[in-house]
């Protein structure tokens, strides 16, 4: 049990401000760049300071541009989904990630390809960041056989076993035990892989969170618990979900390293996630990240969003993760437009492909209830 995992003695705010952290404090920016793992209960300050001037060929800069492009792609993908939903082309429950892209992109960027991801119903961003082809994710939204789950899953059930992306789970908290099991399999097999499980602030109130956190800490499972704290569970604000709203402190009480990160700052997220992944690979058991973020849109396409103040949303939009990173790395408005343009092209091609793709024949309704006989039972 690392001492850094202990809850800090200092009391945390019971009702955390719904205001985003202030932008443009250069001291804070420096802190974020140095980004040592924080002790539970400490907030990581924002890191959107002045853009670092860097030569275009610099691999670090290239990497940052790449993160930016990923976020732009996810944003564009989901904006298109919203349109398609309004047009009645995409149906079911659709939960967009708009505003939270830095979390998925930053955390995923810290993982290796053979690490595993278990996600939620709000997982388009995780899936795309993982590298599941845009075509396959869009086709899934359309319910077509070319979808990454052959269209059976839809928005909430994106899977790609080859890329170790294990869903797309629509039971809040339901992915956590599963992720612990994937981590256990790696531990037992002596593989140095990490399993990352995304879940929301609301999910932490579920019993399955508690049981999984305890089990993972007890067994030193190689598990990254990535809590996307967007301050709401549907319409319920954080302080009506949790007695202790400092979620990193709560997690630390299981005896695991846990810290909070500015989830609007993709570089801070990536840095924190790298540290956590390092700790996990070093055999120090599960780590918990509280990723402080905000969703710019309603909970789902179904939700009229009656419970949040417009002003609060506007305030957070000022810290749009895309704008923040663009500013930091000196990407001009024009360059950003160009990126958006490219993303639009990719997304439109995916839409066209999805539209043209075949639907599963009705006769195949009962496929995939049991593994077909021809499949090798034991890989």
């Amino acid at each position, binding site marked *: 049990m690392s001492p850094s995992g202990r809850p800090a003695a200092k009391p945390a705010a019971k009702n955390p401000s719904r205001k985003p952290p202030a932008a443009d404090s250069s001291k804070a920016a420096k802190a974020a760049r140095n980004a040592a793992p924080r002790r539970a209960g400490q907030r990581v300050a924002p890191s959107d300071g002045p853009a670092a001037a860097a030569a275009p060929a610099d691999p670090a800069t290239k990497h940052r541009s790449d993160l930016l492009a990923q976020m732009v792609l996810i944003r564009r993908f989901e904006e298109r989904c919203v349109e398609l939903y309004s047009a009645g082309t995409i*149906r*079911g*429950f659709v939960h967009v990630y708009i505003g939270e892209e830095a979390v998925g992109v930053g955390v995923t960027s810290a993982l290796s390809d053979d690490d595993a991801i278990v996600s939620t119903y709000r997982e388009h961003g995780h899936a795309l960041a993982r590298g599941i082809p845009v075509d396959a994710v869009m086709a899934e939204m359309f*319910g*077509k056989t070319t979808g990454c789950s052959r*269209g*059976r*899953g*839809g928005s*909430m*059930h994106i899977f790609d076993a080859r890329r170790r992306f294990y869903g797309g*789970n*629509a*039971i*809040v*908290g*339901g992915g956590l035990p599963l992720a612990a099991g994937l981590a256990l399999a790696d531990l037992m097999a002596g593989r140095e892989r990490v399993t990352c499980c995304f879940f929301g602030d*609301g*999910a932490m*109130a*579920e*019993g*399955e969170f508690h049981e999984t956190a305890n089990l993972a800490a007890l067994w030193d499972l190689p598990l990254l618990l990535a809590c996307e704290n967007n301050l709401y*569970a*549907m*319409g*319920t604000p954080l302080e*009506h*979900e*949790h007695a202790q709203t400092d979620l990193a402190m709560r997690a630390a009480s299981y005896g695991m390293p846990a810290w909070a990160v500015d989830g609007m700052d993709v570089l801070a997220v990536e840095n924190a996630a790298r540290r956590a992944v390092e700790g996990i690979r070093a055999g120090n058991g599960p780590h918990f990240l509280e990723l402080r973020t905000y969703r710019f849109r309603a909970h789902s396409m179904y*939700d009229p969003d*009656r*419970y949040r103040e417009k002003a609060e949303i506007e305030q957070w939009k000022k810290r749009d993760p895309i704008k923040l990173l663009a500013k930091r790395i000196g990407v001009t408005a024009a360059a950003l437009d160009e990126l958006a343009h490219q993303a639009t092209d990719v997304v439109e091609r995916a839409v066209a492909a999805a539209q043209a793709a075949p*639907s*599963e024949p*009705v006769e195949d*309704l*009962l496929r995939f*209830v049991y593994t077909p006989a021809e499949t090798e039972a034991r890989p």
Partner: protein
Amino acid sequence: MTAKVDASPAPHPPATSTATLTYREALREALREAMAADERVFLMGEDVGKYGGSFGVSLGLLEQFGPRRIRDTPLSEAAFVGAGIGAAIGGMRPIVEIMTVNFSLLALDQILNNAATLLHMSGGQLSVPVVIRMTTGGGRQLAAQHSRSLEGWYASIPGIRVLAPATIDDARYMLGPALADPDPVVIFEHGSLYNESGTLSPRPPAFGLSSAAVRRTGHDVSLITYGGSLGKALDAADTLAAEGVSAEVIDLRVLRPLDDATIAASVGRTHRAVIIDEGWRTGGLSGEIATRIAEQAFYELDAPVERVCGAEVAIPYPRHLEDAALPQAADIVAAARRAVG
């Protein structure tokens, strides 16, 4: 137990005006009435407050009754359902909303091992007057984990009563007697019904929770169903009528205890039965009802009882596959034709 609940006078003067409203509004009016009538009644569940409930049923109630009685809970199905059970024992009359039946598994330990069992294992000391509401069923492309119909499991639990309002009237009037019941009552609201609208009848003088309803009379075949499939059965009856087959449509309304008398009487008249249940065919309500028909009317039956059920698969997302997985009017018509032979 049945007689008592039925005999209890309507808690309020029967409504006299007939109005057009949605199923959702009917449920809401029932909640409003119950809250206004009895200080001990309160509503608790995820997002029942400002959000208005995940399907908008409780919209406006927070404003009317305040956060003490319209209680948003954390995502903790076991705890808040269990707390509803405890509060019922403690003298309150809680209405607990579980967003959907799919999540109710997380609270099933509390419902079975506590709510349904406390009375018996305490030797009759602890009645548990809790009402648990939840959305059930498919048909909205919500895919595998949000489309289940598990009413059959609940209907097998001794110690609870299970309701499935399928009409505006039942949505409006079932809650009162459910709250008056001293034992746990679980109410299933089919997700496809919330936007249905219709005319509300005046409150029947002795509105009860014991009997099934004959929604359409007929003499060739009995279509026996409940909840979200009632409309499909009525549609099928229309089609059958055009073919000269007279179908009787039975709405079970109460899934536990089953109203054997109404079912047997209907089959006694028609000698043929089709059971329509959105739940899986195997091990669900449909087999139970078919077996009871055979037990009670074995020599009356002119043909095997037909079952039209949900396919044995987790509901797939695409519309055409979901449609194929759920009972449709055409399937009911085909089954009725087979029965009539």
